[in-house]
């Protein structure tokens, strides 16, 4: 286990290095002059262009720029937003909490709905419950989340007036966005829980548990579900990534503040330091989450031995 943990950490190092190189190169991959592009909407003089170029250290050699970029990032310095002139790290921390709230509540919705539906479907395979849960899963995968969000706004805020349509703040503002995000994600969890549960229910230890006269609820909960959820847990790392991506869309639909909206606005404003900062932070977090999920896998399922 120790060696495996170590090896996973060692694997993460080149990945994070690659990510940092790619994010750093973003500015240099822009077709044409990145400084001109960033200021394309303004009347600028050559001096102003040169000033921004030297502020972004674009007049230095590439290795030196990269070293500066990494050194800064390691110390929490991601440069300054071109539009607001505020530090990128401040922009991100100011917008982090609403996105985390949205993502965690969305994940909760997804887990409850997905695992619940998956179990129901697996208990009575090929019944109408199973059929309707697979139809639900299929619709969930095919439905664009921005459309689902608009339908929610149309039904629950414009007509039933139960929840506010847009904006951030209290829990009431969080209900519709979290439902939108969670419902689309629950489809995948439902599918996976169903197949995993069906697999486990075929195992011999379930037959043994039943034949020794254990209550069905105990068989299902203690013996089946616990084992069936192991593969489900492993996709939570992937889910985290999908939730973040979903947040980009959902935040825009509901006009909520957050990282997702921040990056969309930064891209539209051609605010490169801000885009780079967000991309770097999110992808490094993603690598870390997947690392943790991978390691947790071994603890959850003692049958798994890495060598």
């Amino acid at each position, binding site marked *: 286990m120790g060696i495996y943990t170590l090896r996973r950490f060692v694997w993460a190092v080149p990945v994070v290095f690659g990510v940092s190189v790619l994010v750093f190169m*973003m500015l240099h991959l822009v077709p044409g002059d990145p400084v001109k592009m960033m200021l394309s909407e303004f009347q600028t003089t050559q001096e102003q262009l040169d000033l921004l170029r030297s502020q972004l250290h674009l007049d230095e050699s590439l290795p030196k720029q990269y070293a500066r970029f990494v050194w800064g990032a390691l110390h929490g310095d991601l440069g300054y937003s071109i539009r607001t002139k505020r530090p990128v790290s401040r922009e991100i921390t100011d917008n982090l909490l609403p996105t985390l709230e949205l993502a965690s509540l969305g994940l909760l919705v997804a887990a409850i709905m997905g695992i619940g539906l998956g179990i129901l479907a697996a208990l009575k395979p090929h019944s109408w419950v199973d059929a309707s849960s697979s139809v639900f899963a299929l619709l969930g995968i095919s439905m664009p989340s921005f459309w689902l969000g608009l339908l929610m706004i149309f039904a629950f805020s414009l007509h039933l007036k139960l929840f506010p349509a847009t904006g951030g703040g209290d829990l009431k503002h969080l209900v519709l966005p979290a439902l939108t995000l969670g419902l689309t994600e629950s489809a995948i969890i439902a599918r996976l829980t169903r197949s995993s549960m069906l697999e486990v229910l075929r195992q011999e230890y379930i037959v043994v548990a039943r034949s020794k006269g254990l209550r069905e609820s105990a068989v299902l909960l203690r013996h089946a579900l616990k084992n069936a959820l192991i593969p489900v847990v492993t996709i939570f790392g992937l889910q985290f990534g999908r939730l973040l991506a979903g947040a980009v869309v959902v935040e825009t639909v509901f006009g909520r503040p957050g990282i997702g909206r921040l990056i969309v606005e930064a891209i539209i404003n051609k605010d490169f330091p801000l885009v780079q900062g967000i991309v770097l932070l999110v992808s490094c977090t993603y690598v870390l989450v997947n690392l943790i999920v991978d390691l947790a896998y071994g603890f959850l399922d003692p049958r798994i031995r890495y060598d």
Partner: protein
Amino acid sequence: MRTCAKTDALPSRRAWRATSSLWLDAVRRLRQSKGAMIGLVLTMILFATALLAPKVAPYPPNKINVGGFLERPSAAHLFGTDQFGRDVFSRVVFGARISLTVGFVAVGIASVLGTITGLVSGYYGGWVDNVLMRLVDVLLAFPGILLALAIVSILGPGLRNVMVAVGVSAIPTYARLTRGSVLAVREQLYITAARSVGVNNTRILLRHVFPNVIAPLIVASTLGIGTSILWAAALSFLGLGSQPPEPEWGRMLSEGRQYLRDHWWIATFPGLAIMITVLGVNLLGDGLRDALDPRLRA
């Protein structure tokens, strides 16, 4: 080397007969699946709509009608009209062309580049495999739509750039899938046989390895078209993709957003179009998976 070519040709013709019956089996299984058939019909309708758009649509998609802003759905305008008096039905019909193009181009980029990467990586192994797979790992470190967002921010907004962005961000899926299949195929006796009679690597890869890893790729590409359409629509919805006045579904939805309260039809029908399209492609893809790989059937 003449004899070599001969021995090469003979079993491969026999192999073709065997694979053709394999494909026939798959088609038979596909036809038995209700879901796949529904998916096929939906996809065919979509293709027909896209091809015959000028015939199906009663109005030109961008024709502004000054007298008819925001009209409710009626016999003259099946899906109503938008804030410029444009016929929403005609725009949805022409939007099918855009979405299909986006889906195919993006999947084309992803599957060609991904498959080549996977073939080379899996077949040669060693340091080539190591380097290519670490690169794929790096691409996979950008979760979901983030890589596409980053690429759009480099290339700038626009439909063409969105196709590239969505395509490139799907490369890892195809690379890993192909590599996995190649690793299994590489150990087969017929590959050793081909190698021992002196067939060169490129030929082995194209004639012997590739045909045997193509089935999962077909499934992934079909499902990938659905995902690409969904992502591209999302990017256009965010204002990063299609530009006015293109009748792109995601952007039509975004434009219809502000009229949602009293003019629901502007945002509803493009959304429905996206969902039905993606649903059809997904049903077909699921059916293909069951048909091409009976072992995976639940």
